[in-house]
């Protein structure tokens, strides 16, 4: 992915709180941005999902991107003890797709690290 397609957070050394709002299934830019984080002060990662628009996430490419995010969030848990929060965006149809999100982030779900709201 070209560098300009995701925010570079490597210089934000005081960063404590990070929130992404994801529309559609393009989750790769969240992963790319998170990979640039170097702050030792990070305490919270929140991902606001628009569940109703995650329709294509079960396709091969989309699924691989979610697996990458799953692995990265596990790393944040093991290295920083940060438990990610997944929040359903308003008016997105509710958490009836909760099970699907748990399938997309299986390792986080297995370790009971997903904080779904």
């Amino acid at each position: 992915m070209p560098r300009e397609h995701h925010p570079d957070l490597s210089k934000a050394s005081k960063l404590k709180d990070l929130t992404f709002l994801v529309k559609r299934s393009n989750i790769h830019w969240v992963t790319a941005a998170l990979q640039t984080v170097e702050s030792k002060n990070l305490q919270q990662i929140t991902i606001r999902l628009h569940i109703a628009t995650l329709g294509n996430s079960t396709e091969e490419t989309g699924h691989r991107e979610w697996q990458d995010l799953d692995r990265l969030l596990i790393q944040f848990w093991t290295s920083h003890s940060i438990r990610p929060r997944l929040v359903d965006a308003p008016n997105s149809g509710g958490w009836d797709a909760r099970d699907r999100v748990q399938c997309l982030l299986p390792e986080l779900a297995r370790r009971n690290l997903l904080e779904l709201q």
Partner: protein
Amino acid sequence: MKVLGTIIWVPTAGKGTDENAALNLRTDFPWTTVGIEQNPASDSGAGDQRHMPCSLPPETLDFVIDQLHDEPATLRACCLVSKSWIPRTRRHLFAHVQFDDLEYPFDSWIRTFPDPSNSPAHHTRSLSICDLPTSTRTGTDVGNCIRAFHNVVHFDLNHYAGVGYDNPLAPFFGFSPVVRSLSLTSTSSEVFDLICSFPLLEDLELIDFCPEDGTVGWSPPSTSPKLTRSLNLAVRGGIHSTTRRLLNFPDGLHFAKITVTCIGEDFRSATDLVSKCSDTLESLKVCCFLMGAFPSASLTGQDLTAACGRSHA
């Protein structure tokens, strides 16, 4: 609180003096209630021979009224008790003033307080204006009235595209030197001179406007506010141009919290903002509308306000 039991006799609207009974008390229109004094000399209650005898120290009375700061109906009733109660109740009743063209028209304020210097505008700390006409129906210049709100700390301007000035936002330039929070939604694009007219500005919100093109033909101001708290940026067509101008502010950017809505290539601008504030940034929220998946041309103001969390913060 025992002291309340000794002096508060639950004032009821419509049961005050004859003068008070003549007031048009409307709970949804606070300034008609307290428009009985047009002379600032009487604002302190000095010289008023009809005020209710009270042996309590004024600071005790002030304390009691302060406890009612979030009960506007009770505060309006307190205005009818005694003129000596009015100054303190006004401080709370007019702490937040909102104008819009339908429910709370600016013209009504001007009719009630025709002389801006005698209006209770100096009590206002939070001012919200939506759909304000450039000149009022009473022919009064908006800028002249706005300058009476010289103690406003939080200023919110919505859907204002004033004409008749070189810069449509000129009536608001520096009207209150203590503004710390500025929110502009769907206004004229020439917002940067307005931003720089508030030296103490800390929080900045720019939602849903079409920015000028980059920095072409734009001279950076000689000074700019410190901008040390929060930035919320959701600009139709992308944040690139707006970011370019903000990055050229002479005193830099020092935001601790950034919320930015990115469209397509906007991530480059978001990265520039993050880099500029890297020493101070503590919280970052990125809303992504990827080009193609969500073309910027189809973005609406509702999309932008929803994306940046303004309507459901």
